[in-house]
């Protein structure tokens, strides 16, 4: 590209380039992330793309590094090496607040909800709306009701009932709605259906599809291959701390996923060639 001395020209070129980049760039791009704890190497140069409007399933056996990797993105851990790009820009996520600021929200496996608080109080916990220094309950109630309605979370009797009285699926739905509330762009879910029955699992899977249809990037950690094939557009598989494959879900079948999860795909590559 010839050097351009006109200021306006640079601007023009620059904005055009970002636009082009945005089309091609995934929302979150992770390159070469290493993480160790003492002598134990948990992640080896992990790469991952999380595009907007897609559900990416992160699979792997126990100890493959899924949780550690997730925590590196959500700001709980700091990677030792590697780069993270958000919308094509390099970023450093030092803590969970940095992640929230970018638009990354995590729904934790153990459901980060307070049983004694009601749905509205939980959804706004830590980010209460105030009017004249006091809690603005009406405003929060309205906003929570809107978010729940837009996500079609309609099974709850009252948004003023304590979370303790909800079913597992309803709790999970509230936890996910809480994450979506903040104009988040990437929602990470750790085993969201692990503790749920059939009907409740369906509610949560449908909710995940709705987030995707809204244009959010969704990353879900799951052991349940039924769920993975039901909801995922892309599948990424970790094996002993290494990312062994990531591709469109249509390129996988059950057996191939299991093979990658248990052997890292050693046999598969030979068979493909």
């Amino acid at each position, binding site marked *: 590209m010839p050097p351009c001395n006109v200021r306006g020209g640079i601007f023009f070129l620059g904005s055009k380039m970002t636009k082009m980049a945005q089309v091609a760039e995934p929302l979150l791009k992770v390159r070469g992330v290493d993480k160790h704890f003492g002598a134990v190497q948990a992640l080896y140069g992990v790469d991952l793309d999380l595009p907007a409007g897609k559900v990416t399933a992160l699979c792997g056996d126990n100890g493959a590094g899924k949780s550690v990797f997730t925590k590196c993105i959500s700001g709980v851990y700091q990677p030792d090496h590697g780069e993270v790009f958000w919308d094509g820009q390099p970023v450093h996520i030092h803590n969970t607040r940095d992640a929230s600021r970018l638009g990354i929200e995590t729904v934790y496996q153990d459901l980060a909800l*307070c049983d004694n608080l009601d749905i509205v*109080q939980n959804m706004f*916990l830590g*980010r209460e709306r105030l009017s004249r220094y006091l809690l603005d309950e009406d405003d929060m109630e309205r906003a929570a009701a809107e978010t729940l309605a837009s996500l079609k979370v309609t099974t709850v009797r009252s948004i003023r009932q304590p979370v303790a009285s909800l079913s597992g699926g309803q709790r999970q739905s509230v936890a996910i709605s809480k994450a979506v509330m903040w104009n988040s762009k990437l929602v990470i879910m750790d085993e969201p259906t692990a503790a749920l029955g059939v009907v409740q699992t369906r509610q949560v899977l449908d909710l995940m599809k709705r987030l995707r249809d809204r244009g959010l990037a969704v990353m879900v950690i799951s052991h349940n291959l039924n769920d993975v094939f039901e909801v995922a557009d892309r599948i990424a598989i970790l094996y002993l701390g290494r990312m062994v494959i990531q591709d469109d879900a249509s390129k996988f079948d059950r057996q191939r996923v299991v093979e990658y999860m248990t052997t890292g795909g050693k046999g598969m590559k030979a068979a493909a060639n």
Partner: protein
Amino acid sequence: MLIVFSYLSFVSPVFFTSRNLLNVLDQSAIVGMIAVAGTMVLIAGGLGGFGLVNGLASTKGRVNSIITTLASGIIIRGLALVLTGGALVRVLDPNFAVPGQGVMLGVTTQVAIFAFVVAAAWFLLARTTFGRYVYASGGNPEAARLSGVQVDRVRIITFVVSGLVAATAGVLSASRVATGQADAGMGLEINAIAAILIGGTSISGGEGAVWRTVFGLFLVVLVGNGFNLLDVNPIWQQVFQGAVILGAVALDSWSKRR
């Protein structure tokens, strides 16, 4: 409470007189202040324990808060005994007796201050983010932390606030009789805890309210007053009170398990 109230009015002619009831209110005020402030500590999930040192020891130092409270209570009583040699301390300055013996808006000063503490505590818990964080810290500290609530800080603040209120109550109580004694106020904390627990605030945190404690307080004090009016041996009062506390705690953990 209504049952206790009507029973006592029935069996004792003195009970339902404004003089006796005002007296009851006056007696409740000091225990009440401590109980209301203690309610906040319990809701935030830091059972018992008053003051910054206790707060730090039990949150940062990971010392069980019951032990912290008991131990520091013993230390402070011991220090007070060392300072006074166990004798009564008479305060000669007549101004010292003003807050404890004065009258404000038709009630004694301590009742007025108690009413203020109740109103302030209710307001804090129900209308401010701090109150919300108090409930969250007691309900699920991990979830609160992940949502950005500084749980340790919230708990320490409840400890400090209740320490300040307890200190105020102590000064008022001393001012009432214009004397200080190292072991004055023995049994006060038991009454306060009884009021909180009978009101239904949970020892495991997250549940409770100021009005509940006020309710529990009046029950405790009315029963005590009734015993006095009916000339029941005070030793039986203690037995009764202990049994009621035990019952309240048992009910709490039983309803939790269900």
